[in-house]
């Protein structure tokens, strides 16, 4: 155990190329997924927050429920879509990083949309009369609120990133954990642990935790600073 930890630390210290490659792919996949999910989730959250349409409450409950979507189920669905016999099989992207990005995007889109909906709706309650008084329509209001809640939205992005970086089920199924192609931190940890190769698994585990802590700390400080600066 101590030996494994020592080996893990030396892998980190030497910037082992295999380890670096895995970390970089993980970041590429999860950051892409977060970027796309934010691009889709923010407008969706804002539209639901200020919109008035039949079935709105049902949609909110549904969206909140989707936050707890099991990654393996998302992986399975994307697998079915992208497999050779599936509707998008002709794209031939199963077992590629693209497939992993799609799966993670679907996994965290509900998180970003639901959390941003909540943040924007809270702001809407505060701003509604003033914005309507100034003659803002609902589309104007949605855009205004998106910008005014920008620091809260940062937190929703983080929640999404944390979920994407830490999940193993979806990327395992649609990526296939192919060495040098689709192997990311979580899938490697799962594989190496089952093989008994603890140092690599442990080293990646340390990096994964460090990244999540660093990103959260950075976002927390940004929010604190912005709150003091902008109120």
């Amino acid at each position: 155990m101590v030996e494994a930890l020592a080996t893990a630390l030396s892998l980190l210290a030497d910037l082992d190329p295999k380890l670096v490659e895995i970390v970089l792919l993980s970041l590429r996949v999860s950051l892409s997924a977060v970027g796309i999910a934010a691009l889709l989730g923010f407008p969706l959250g804002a539209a639901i927050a200020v919109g008035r349409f039949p079935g709105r409450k049902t949609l909110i409950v549904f969206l909140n429920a989707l936050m707890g979507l099991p990654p393996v189920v998302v992986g399975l669905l994307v697998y079915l879509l992208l497999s050779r016999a599936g509707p998008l099989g002709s794209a031939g992207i199963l077992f590629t990083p693209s497939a992993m990005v799609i799966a993670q995007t679907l996994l965290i889109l509900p998180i970003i949309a639901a959390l941003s909906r909540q943040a924007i709706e809270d702001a809407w309650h505060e701003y509604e009369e003033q914005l309507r008084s100034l003659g803002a329509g609902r589309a104007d209001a949605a855009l205004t609120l998106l910008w005014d809640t920008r620091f809260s939205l940062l937190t929703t992005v983080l929640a999404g990133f944390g979920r994407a970086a830490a999940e193993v089920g979806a990327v395992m199924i649609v990526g296939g954990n192919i060495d040098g192609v689709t192997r990311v931190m979580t899938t490697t940890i799962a594989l190496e642990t089952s093989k008994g190769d603890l140092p690599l698994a442990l080293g990646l585990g340390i990096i994964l935790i460090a990244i999540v802590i660093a990103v959260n700390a950075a976002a927390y400080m940004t929010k604190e600073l912005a709150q003091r600066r902008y109120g």
Partner: protein
Amino acid sequence: MKNGAILPLRLDEVSFAAGGRTIIEGISLEIAAGPSTIILGANGAGKSVLMRLMHGLLAPTSGRVEWHAREYPGAPRKQAMVFQRPVLLRRSAQANVAYALKLAGVSEPQRGAQAREALESVGLAHLARRPARVLSGGEQQRLALARAWALHPEVLFLDEPTASLDPSATREIESVIRAFDAAGTKIVMATHNLGQARRLGDEILFLDRGRLVERAPVEQFFAKPQSAQAAAFIKGELPWT
């Protein structure tokens, strides 16, 4: 009368109920350009709701609210409202004013100069770049007035604009309101501060439990209230002015 003026405003048997409670009951009145109108009444009399009905933020449960010229959604508004607690956006003071100008259809090159002019008129030019939400309470309310000023509204509604401010901030706000009046903007203000009503008002609309009980010129209202409710209100409120 100005071309396309939205005044006079007519309320015809307007009632408003929410949650099974009647808040405004059968109010009919006409608001014309000119004299500053003060809506007086105890807490819960319906002052805020009445102004929101006039301003179009609430729709009456029954009855009609009619402006002389209708305003269309999307067109620049000729009326503005300043709330008890100003709602300011997370951006600079000047950007808050520019935002209102943008919604009013003012082209971008003109917004900066007009926003600065509005800030100057309320004495906030030196704070133009300061984030709006870190200003003091009085400064925030003056900024809300600058935002309204920039729009040159024909009618300005004010809902207890000084209720949460200290006396010196209140004086500053009152002098800006006088400037609006001097510039020809029709003032409609709710307050329960009798001193303020006397200082700023020309006529009083007195509400009691959702009904319009009395309407009179300021001097007459305070000297000889016609209704028992108004007399009791003046007597009860005087010690706090």
